[in-house]
């Protein structure tokens, strides 16, 4: 197995699919001549030419709309937002057109589009450029929301997203682009709605996804040294959600902690907590808990940014408290 970075894995997924289907094209700011703001589309302009790798002006509302129109007439666009923060300018296109067109046209216009880009905090990018949008988009029927953590998942899930005939919100993590991991050599894809059990354990289940696993996995490692056995689930796919894996794990551990990068109020973790208490009530030995970003706009100062995000320490102390 080759070791790839997260960005290389995404690049490989797009290239494998574009090689096979001439209807797929990539469009966004800096995706061509600059090789992508985060270098995800490295070499793709040279490979596929200006018709299929299209640099746009700064106009999210415009190029998201162009992408949706292209999808309506049979193309399969991949729209890159430089960061998901800029998708706010195009959110009307995404929610009111992409998500609903197939429904409102009684199935005449499926929208096979992928919106992808960097999400979450990136390190001193401050309040307007450090937000997590999973729960915003997961709220909308008609959208699929994917947030991979490992390079292998990034590749396998992006391929599934490109092949899917529905609009997909593919949220990459800004801080994961350089992370490395083994990626299978042969072609593969990973279905939506399947969580990955990152670590087996018996005392508590931690449910997490994307960047938050950067804190969860080492925390679980440290807790293991204290004799606390943590089961770690990586959802990978936010919507559709793999409920069964969650409940199976809780039937075993009787405790659930949800760790997410976004804010607490109406964050996606609250939906998971609701589902757990509804469907696993009789298996709970403790209240379901959450660790989220602090309820403030992201501070610019490095130490405050760190303090506002979930951390290994926060997770460890919360787990100890839950196992009191």
């Amino acid at each position, binding site marked *: 197995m080759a070791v790839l970075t997260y960005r290389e894995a995404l690049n490989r997924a797009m290239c494998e699919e574009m090689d096979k289907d001439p209807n797929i094209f990539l469009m966004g700011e800096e995706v061509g001549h600059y090789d992508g703001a985060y270098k995800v589309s490295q070499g793709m302009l040279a490979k596929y030419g200006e018709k299929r790798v299209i640099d746009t002006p700064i106009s999210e509302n415009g190029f998201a709309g162009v992408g949706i129109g292209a999808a309506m007439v049979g193309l399969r666009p991949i729209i890159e937002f430089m960061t998901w923060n800029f998708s706010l300018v195009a959110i009307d296109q995404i929610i009111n057109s992409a998500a609903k067109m197939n429904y409102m046209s009684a199935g005449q216009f499926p929208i096979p589009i992928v919106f992808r880009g960097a999400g979450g905090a990136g390190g001193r990018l401050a309040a307007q450029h450090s937000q997590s949008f999973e729960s915003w988009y997961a709220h909308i029927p008609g959208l699929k929301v994917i947030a991979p953590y490992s390079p292998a998942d990034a590749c396998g899930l992006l391929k599934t997203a490109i092949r899917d005939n529905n609009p997909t919100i593919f949220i990459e993590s800004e801080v994961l682009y350089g992370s490395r991991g083994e990626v299978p050599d042969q072609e593969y894809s990973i279905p939506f709605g399947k969580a990955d059990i990152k670590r087996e354990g018996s005392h508590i289940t931690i449910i997490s996804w994307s960047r938050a696993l950067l804190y969860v996995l080492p925390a679980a490692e440290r807790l293991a040294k204290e004799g606390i056995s943590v089961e770690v689930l990586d959802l990978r796919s936010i919507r559709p959600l793999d409920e069964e894996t969650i409940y199976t794990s809780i039937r075993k551990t*009787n405790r659930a902690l949800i760790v997410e990068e976004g804010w607490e109020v109406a964050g996606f973790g609250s939906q998971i907590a609701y589902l757990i208490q509804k469907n696993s*009530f*009789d*298996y*709970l*030995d*403790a209240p379901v808990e959450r660790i989220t970003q602090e309820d403030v706009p992201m501070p610019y100062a490095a130490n405050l940014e760190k303090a506002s995000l979930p951390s290994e320490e926060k997770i460890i102390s919360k787990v100890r408290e839950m196992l*009191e």
Partner: protein
Amino acid sequence: MAKIAEMTQLSPTMSEGKIVRWLKKSGDSVSPGEIIAEVETDKAVMEMEAFETGVILEILAQEGSLLPVGAPVAIIGKSGEDISALVETARKSIPSKKESAPSVGTVAAPSVSEKKAEARPQESISPSPQEIESEVSISASRKESKRHQGGLIKASPLAKNLALQNGIDLGEVVGSGPDGRILKRDILAFQETGGGKKGSSFVKPQDRKIELTGMRKTIATRLAHSTSTIPHFYLTLEIDAYPIDNLRNSINKDLKLEGQNKISVNDLILKACSLCLREVPEVNSSWREDHILQHGRVDIGVAVSIEGGLITPYVRDADRKSVVEISHEIKELASRARERKLKPGEYTDGTFTVSNLGMFGISSFTAVINEPEAAILAVGSLVEKAVIKDDNLVAGKTLTVTLSCDHRVVDGATGARFLSAFREFTEHPLRLLTG
């Protein structure tokens, strides 16, 4: 002008009714004769009709409420009318009592001591809703401790479940979790130290409080009245059941009757009773305090067991109907009885009743007289046994019936005449087809 719709008297014996379901809601238009609600009377669920044309402006009686006949249940009028005064009047006249005394028969008001019992404050330790929910029993003798304040024992859902499965009283377990919450580990530790029933999956059955339905109350009232006021005596007779059994089989075979159409031994017995009652009319009578009423008609009831109780629909003029007619009628009445669709006229005012427990393998039993009738016949199952015939021991088939009689009306000899006629008809059953 808006009018108050009242609880209608839907049967001759009905003094109160329980609103089972509203079929109309506030704002719906109604016209006379339209069904507006389902009401449970003393024995059945009946349909209550509207008598006015208009719109239901206000529903005064909620589903589940038990109200005397004549109590206001809704206000019907023109849309937009001011009915505040009417609502006020109506509300004042609604009895605040949730349940009133059963309506049938003569039932005394609750005595003072009963009233006292009703007013007794709740036990000092009352389980919280959660605890009732999880059906975990709490011994009332438990000492109050800090964690039982307000009657709540803190326990995780999982711990409650384990306690329930293992028949453990949560009140005896010490919680080690936050705020003394009982956790799974506490239940396990409790079992380790020999508490509960270690490792057993025995669930301690809980007491259940079953609310009385109108039918249950009626059964209780009427049968208690019957057994306590009527001087019952019992006459038992064993008949040779071969003839009637053979006749039943050949009727079914020769007429190619199948499934629902087949006639039963019970149908033939009912026919036999109708002819016996014509022959011994003293049994077809009712005690009327200052006289005995000998009925000119022969209306025989069949006790039908239904969900939550029993009911006795009547085959009218059974003496003038053929066995096949009787059979059809019983099947039809029984099926409507099970659906609670009988009209009061169909289960009241008979002259005699037959109760058959043969299908349950009961060989013989005694039945309680169904007032105001003078007798009831309890029919057992067909039993195969050795009998003496012409001085020889042979395989026989017998049927045992017991006649319960009201001694005020029927004397022993009269009852015996009835049963001897019964033997004649059933052991020579062709007469049932010609009588």
